[in-house]
């Protein structure tokens, strides 16, 4: 495998207005608002993921960026040029945008060989250069031996790589990926995902990718835009979304969390494992406390059964980590069922009493949802 430096923290120097800019973009289908005032910038060479549950408008946003859909409101800019501006304004058709689109079903042309599929976007290139370029991108995705094969002769993973090569061949300014790995089985997915990331970073192309899988988004993205109901809920580096979620929805989306509720007293809320500060919440307000399973760190109790102790209900090894089901008495005397995730093999016996240490960096306090 080639050695490639990957910038994963998104701190690369930013040139003003380069790359893709979505400015207050809105769209609806038959009166139903699908994209609602989305603003987003993808810097040159940056990979941004649109993440969200199905029906949140992420794919429509992607299609608007490609020019396949015409936004009803807002502006789309590509390398400082306005390419879409509301209904009635400018609309550069997809064929004149120089963007690469990787489809969920790959959309390879069944009547063309791998070579001709890749050549499809290079029709105005001189013959020699075209050949050179096709060879180049096929080598890049490791498919140079399959130039004369037809799509139906390839496996899903191979088809995906050809689709990637085809989209990259014309040297697009922007790559758009629509759930590009959802057609692959999980084992193959990790491998293809890794390879795709390397190829994209090597090409240095700005990329906007759609996925519903938070782990995939964290694996691929320099920045993530988490969407819900057509709006961006939070935009930032994966570490920002994971460690500083702005809403319970964000924390919840990145994996299972323990939810408990409490009342704010003196700017803090009570948990069975100690007090957490509740910034921005008024005295007496109902608070929702989200605790990631990995924030509950267990160690054998040394006799004392006071604060911060829990009884083991069950423990399971999940591979890289162990999940421990706990029963805890809360301040009101009710019993809470909580999950703790411990690294490696950690399997305490049932009914054992464990001491719990709380990692406050992975606990989040939000105003309680009404209703």
């Amino acid at each position, binding site marked *: 495998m080639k050695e490639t430096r990957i910038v994963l923290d998104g701190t690369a120097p930013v040139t003003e207005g380069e790359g893709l800019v979505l400015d207050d973009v809105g769209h609806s*289908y*038959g009166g139903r608002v699908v994209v609602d005032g989305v603003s987003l910038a993808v810097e040159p060479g940056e990979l941004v993921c649109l993440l969200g549950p199905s029906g949140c408008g992420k794919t429509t946003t992607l*299609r608007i960026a*490609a*020019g*396949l*859909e*015409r936004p009803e409101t807002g502006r789309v800019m590509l390398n400082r040029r306005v390419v879409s501006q509301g*209904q009635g304004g400018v*609309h550069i*058709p*997809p*064929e*004149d*945008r*120089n*963007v*690469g*689109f990787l*489809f*969920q*079903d790959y*959309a*390879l*042309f*069944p*009547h*063309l060989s791998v070579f001709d599929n890749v050549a*499809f*976007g290079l*029709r*105005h290139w001189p013959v020699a250069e075209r050949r050179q370029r096709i060879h180049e991108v096929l080598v890049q995705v490791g498919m140079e031996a399959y130039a004369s094969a*037809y*799509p*139906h*002769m390839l*496996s*899903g*993973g191979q*088809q995906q790589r050809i689709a990637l090569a*085809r*989209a990259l061949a*014309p040297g697009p300014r922007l790559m*758009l990926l629509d*759930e590009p790995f*959802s*057609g*692959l*089985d999980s084992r*193959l997915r990790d491998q293809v995902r890794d390879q795709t990331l390397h190829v994209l970073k090597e090409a240095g192309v700005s990329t906007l990718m759609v996925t519903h899988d938070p782990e995939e988004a964290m694996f691929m993205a320099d920045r993530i835009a988490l969407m819900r109901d057509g709006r961006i809920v939070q935009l930032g580096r994966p570490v920002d979304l994971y460690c500083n979620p702005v809403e319970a929805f964000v924390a919840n989306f990145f994996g299972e969390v323990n939810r408990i509720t409490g009342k704010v007293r003196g700017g803090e809320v009570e948990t069975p494992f100690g007090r957490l500060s509740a910034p921005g919440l008024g005295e007496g307000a109902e608070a929702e406390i989200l605790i990631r399973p990995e924030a509950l760190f267990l160690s054998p109790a040394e006799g004392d059964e006071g604060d911060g102790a829990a009884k083991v209900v069950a423990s399971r090894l999940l591979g890289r980590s162990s999940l421990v089901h706990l029963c805890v008495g809360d301040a009101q005397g009710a019993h809470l069922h909580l999950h703790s995730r411990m690294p490696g093999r950690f399997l305490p016996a049932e009914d054992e009493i464990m001491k719990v240490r709380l990692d406050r960096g992975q606990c989040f306090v939000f105003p309680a949802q009404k209703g």
Partner: protein
Amino acid sequence: MGRAQQERLMSDVNLSTPALSWGRFGRRTGGLFGGGNWGWSLFTILVALLVATPVLVVLAHVFVPTGEVWTHLSQTVLPRYISNSLWLMLGVGVGTLVIGVGTAWAVTMCRFPGVRQFEWALLLPLAVPAYVIAYTYTGLMDFAGPIQSTIRAVFGFQTAREYWFPRIRSLEGAIAMMTLVLYPYVYMLSRAAFLEQSVCVLEASRTLGCGPWRAFRSVALPLARPAIVAGVALALMEALNDFGTVQYFAVDTFTTGIYRTWLGLREPAAAAQLGAVLMLFVFALVLLERLSRRQARYHHTTNRYRSLPRYHLKGWKAALAFIGCFLPVFLGFLFPGGALLLWSFETGPVMIDARFFSLAWNSFILSSVAAVVAVLVALLLAYGQRLHASPASKLAVRIASMGYAVPGSVIAVGIMVPLVWTDNTIDAWMRATFGISTGLLMTGTIGALIFAYLVRFLAVSFNTVEASLSKVTFSMEAASRTLGHGPLATLRRVHVPVIRSSILTAAVLVFVDVMKELPATLIMRPFNFDTLAIRTFALAGDERLREAAPSALAIVLVGIIPVVLLSRIIAKSRPGDAQ
């Protein structure tokens, strides 16, 4: 090896959802690239309007008062026209459905002696026009024909009263004749649909415990239903349109009624009104086809194909399949074709002269030009619809493709009336302004005739092309656009190659139809411009059936060439199945 297969299976399963979701997108936005395609929309509406004009002219005659003529018609002959037409549709519909789908499934999915030959042989009756097979069977089976003569000679009968023999000149006879030559429409379209079905879908049904029959009934048939219904609708439209057979058999239907009212009674308006009633039947057929297709909007969920696993038939099953496939070919082609051949040997030396060859050339040129024009227009219409479908353009396209079921003679009126009017107007204006008489500029030209064919057969090419466009998924279209190809370049480089076999199918269908076309050609042809069909009709009308044989045989023979070509293309069209 094992792993690759597993991976392939997994992705087959997973691939199925995206294609459907893209389809949903396309529908939701009412076109792929919502907005900005007004050029296409305008073109669609313009072409559709032009093509729809004759039909509209005919329909407009509903409002022309004809008084007593219509009252007379509706009291005397109309009930008979309606009941005859309904029985004809029912008979031909059931007949073509059973023969067409049954043979298509047998030759696509089974292996038995002669199956390779039947694949193309089953298309052969398509080359025989209904009126030709009617003339031939009449010649063979009437009182003086060889069959009855033999019966009389063997049993010593003197008159027809002494024995029973089926009367060929009857409604049942007409149903039989039309079924025999129209089933290939159903056969061809359903076979193409069976071939296009993913083997994975069929294999999946096998692993879910479906035997061959259940797989056919619950998977293959529903998947192929849009194509089958389209095929039956085509056959029925042909049956409703037929003039030569029913006229010769004296079975009164709308077409003969229109012809008689128009030429006999000299009442063009009343004839057009009969045509308008006939359009109700057609509306029903088109609606049926549309509805069934809307319910079944399948994109192919995978683009992986492998050779179809065929069921090996042995013993009585193989014999049954063989007979089931042989009978339609024999009765629809070999038997009447053989008779025509014998008669041609008899009368050929006299009938085949230089004039004969010029007639053949006329037929060929007319058919080729009409086929190319019809396919081009259909392709642009269907593609324009896909790019930007507005309610107005949808309606326009529907109306335009209705011409197929309108009898040729009525279409001819629908074109002649406005053409003559335009020619006269221009002539009057030229004479008044420049003192020059231009006479009839467009009436009675080849161009006008080609236009009539376009109106009549646009539905054939349009249905075929439109149905096959669903082979191009919406994401393939979008992929081409993002790779720098505009709408026209996408059409040329993606759609046309992918649906090439369907385009050729459409062209051949139109070619053969124009070759056989009779009533419109009869009325609209330029002065002294004859075709083989017209000569056959004229000779048979004079009961000179044997003399008509050479030109009838020529029509059949020319019809065979594209049929063979067509069969080869269909067999090859399946990607990954190429030799």
